[in-house]
């Protein structure tokens, strides 16, 4: 029966190719547009740390000016970063299972002379050792460093895949030496592809920036008095004459994350940071009300508004467009089905049941939906290709994956059936007698 209805559906569609094409085309562009915006939205609103969301926390303290909040448009939020000295103090706590303090710094990389690669500037990250473990960072070769290196006493470096490709042609460079800012560093690890989207651990310079190009122990930053290459915000009228003054200042520029397994530990660490801030208040710092937060990655991304409003607006508009496409299809289907009503009347008179008529027409609608869905996926791929061109180096961001393909077919068939239901129901109510008379 299925095959018979399928043949009937194709026959009916071929009878009126313009109209069929229009209906399939309408569903296809509707689905294509929706899938394009949804894919971008989903990637931008994703949580790259979903698997570890329950145990990871960003740490923020409100160390800002008593006269005004850090952000005028979000007075409830503390600064997203810590001062150097506060980060040092929190890092001394042994409550967290793992913890990381870190910041960005620029490095000039000199590849081995024989490589012929000219010195190039990269953005690096100085971080304590747990960065790689806490955030599930994949290694291609080697690994990270241990606690002894955190203070900067060992000049070791972990390269991103991109940097290793550029400086060592992608070979296993563990054990090799690179010169960074004129100092020799030993390569101890090379990362595999890693593109956390959004770049949750440091949202300060662009939510969708690529990861840093190399990673060195936190203490290297002090060792070589490296300036921050990320966001630095200051408010207090402090005279700063040298690097030590800067480290002691109330400028915020350090990102801080902890891993706390279990709610007791989370409560204990919250207690710890609140107590720390109270002590500091007694010393005349932290003039604002107590406003310290431990936030899971999902909440962190939300309060920092990682997803731009534009993307939500686009998704909304896309679905309104899909609605127009469906209205269009309902109108056309209705016209078509009712136009063929005399034929339906004849079939009913010859003994076809209402149910059979219903199934037959629903099959036709399903075929239209499915064809529209397939074509829609092709259009979405085209749309995403366009988005990629508008958004350089966002390749990772805008790829159609299996879930989106299923979603596309799902939206298409569902909306096809939804649109087809009313016309199908109408045509089933045809009274055979009315169409058997000559006009």
């Amino acid at each position: 029966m299925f095959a018979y209805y399928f043949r009937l559906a194709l026959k009916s569609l071929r009878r009126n190719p313009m109209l069929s094409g229009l209906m399939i085309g309408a569903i296809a562009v509707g689905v294509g547009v929706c899938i394009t915006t949804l894919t971008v939205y989903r990637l931008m609103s994703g949580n790259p740390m979903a698997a570890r969301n329950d145990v990871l926390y960003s740490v923020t303290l409100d160390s800002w000016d008593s006269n005004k909040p850090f952000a005028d448009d979000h007075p409830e939020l503390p600064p997203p970063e810590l001062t150097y000295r506060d980060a040092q103090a929190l890092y001394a706590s042994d409550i967290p299972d793992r913890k990381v303090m870190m910041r960005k710094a620029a490095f000039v990389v000199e590849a081995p002379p024989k490589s012929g690669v000219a010195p190039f500037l990269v953005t690096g990250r100085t971080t304590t050792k747990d960065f790689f473990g806490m955030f599930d960072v994949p290694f291609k070769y080697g690994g990270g460093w241990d606690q002894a290196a955190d203070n900067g006493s060992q000049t070791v470096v972990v390269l991103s895949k991109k940097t290793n490709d550029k400086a060592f042609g992608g070979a296993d460079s563990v054990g090799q030496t690179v010169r960074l800012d004129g100092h020799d560093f030993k390569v101890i690890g090379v990362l595999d592809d890693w593109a956390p989207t959004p770049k949750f651990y440091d949202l300060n310079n662009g939510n969708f920036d690529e990861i840093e190009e190399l990673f060195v122990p936190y203490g290297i930053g002090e060792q070589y008095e490296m300036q921050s290459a990320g966001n630095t915000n200051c408010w207090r009228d402090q005279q700063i004459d040298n690097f030590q003054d800067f480290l002691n200042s109330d400028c915020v520029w350090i990102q801080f994350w902890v891993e706390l397994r279990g709610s007791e530990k989370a409560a204990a660490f919250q207690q710890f940071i609140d107590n720390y801030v109270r002590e500091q208040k007694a010393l005349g710092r932290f003039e604002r009300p107590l406003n310290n937060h431990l936030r899971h990655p999902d909440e962190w991304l939300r309060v920092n508004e990682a997803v731009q409003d534009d993307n939500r607006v686009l998704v909304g508009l896309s679905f309104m467009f899909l609605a127009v496409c469906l209205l269009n299809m309902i109108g056309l289907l209705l016209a078509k089905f009712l136009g063929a009503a005399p034929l339906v009347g004849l079939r009913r008179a010859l003994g076809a049941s209402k149910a059979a008529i219903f199934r037959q027409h629903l099959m036709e609608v399903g075929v239209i939906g499915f064809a529209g869905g397939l074509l829609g996926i092709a259009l979405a791929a085209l749309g995403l290709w366009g988005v990629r061109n508008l958004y350089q180096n966002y390749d990772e961001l805008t790829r159609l994956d299996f879930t989106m393909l299923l979603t596309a077919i799902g939206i298409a068939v569902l909306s096809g059936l939804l649109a087809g239901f009313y016309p199908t129901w109408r045509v089933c109510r045809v009274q055979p007698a009315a169409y058997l008379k000559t006009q």
Partner: protein
Amino acid sequence: MELRPILSAMLRNKTGAILVGLQIALTLAVVANSVAIITTRVEKIGRPPGIDSDNLIFVQSYGFGPNYVQRSTIDDDLRLLRSLPGVISAAPISQIPLSQGGSATNLGPEQTREKVTINTNHFSVDEHGVEALGVKLVEGRNFTQSEIQYTPDPNSSDFVPFVILNRDAAKAIFGTEHAVGKTVYDLSHSAVVIGIMENMLGSWVGWDKLTQVMLTPRIEAGPLARYVVRAEPGQRDALIAEIEQKLANSNPNRAITYVKSHTEIKKRSYRADSRMVAFLSVLIVLMVSVTALGIVGLASFHVNVRRKQIGTRRAVGARRIDIIRYFMLENWLLTTGGVVAGSILAFAFGQWLSSAYSLPRLPPLYVGGGVLVLWVLGQLAAFLPARRAAAIPPAIATRTV
């Protein structure tokens, strides 16, 4: 005159009419709001940057190793850049306008925490900065060579004795008062305003304080150095290649990290807005096409089922023009119903957008424009089927189906 029969025919097929009306209504709502968003973005992208943007090149150099000396590197680089034919002027600059990276300082007319609140974009340049950027001084004077500060420690928060403000910054700090000769303060320093320049835009394209800019006479400490180079019209692209090549090997203790036109830098900063414009434009075109095709499809269909009826009308004396007029009028009624509903929907949708996403409110003009476009579009879409209907011969009335 023909309204009554058309209306009663429409009432007999309410569903079809409602469907088309709804489609037109939704189309109007989406198109009017999209055009409003596009317009604000296009205006944002098109704001005059206040500098000679089309002819500017920015160069970034980064020193490394024990042999690198910032000051002499900058002096050598500037000498080389200024000697190139086709270069009008070149200057060191701490940040790049409209690049999404920069420095800002709170300033005020008095040194109190309550008064020092005017957030100002700030660019350090030397005495060539004004000419190299292509901004116009309107009052006071430029920096002189001896006024250019240099502090070798990059961490130093030292300030400068003199500054140049642009009109917007001067107005924000001093109101309508004459600013030249007055003193501006941050929380720990002060400087005398020696000049006022025409407006130029600052660093972050999405920032509401973008228009407040201050120039300071200072060469920044290393290892980062940036230059702005102003080319003679038409020379820019050739100069980019030449600068890249000449600077690449001039000093082994630094890397030239980029030589870019300001056009390219700006384009990158505005890409989120460009993306929105591109996407919404495509959406509008698709939406209008789908709606138009829908109207054509439905009208053609109506013509087909009414062939006999049309033939009969023709046989009893209706002219071709009467048939065309019938279909056009029917379509016009449908469209009108749609745009009335659509106008309400458009304003409701615009209201929601502006409250939920703090977008500007929908100007009524856009809805009016949308109504006109849809009227014309509807008539165009109906014309083809209507003409086909008019071509139906009267003889058809005499045949049975």
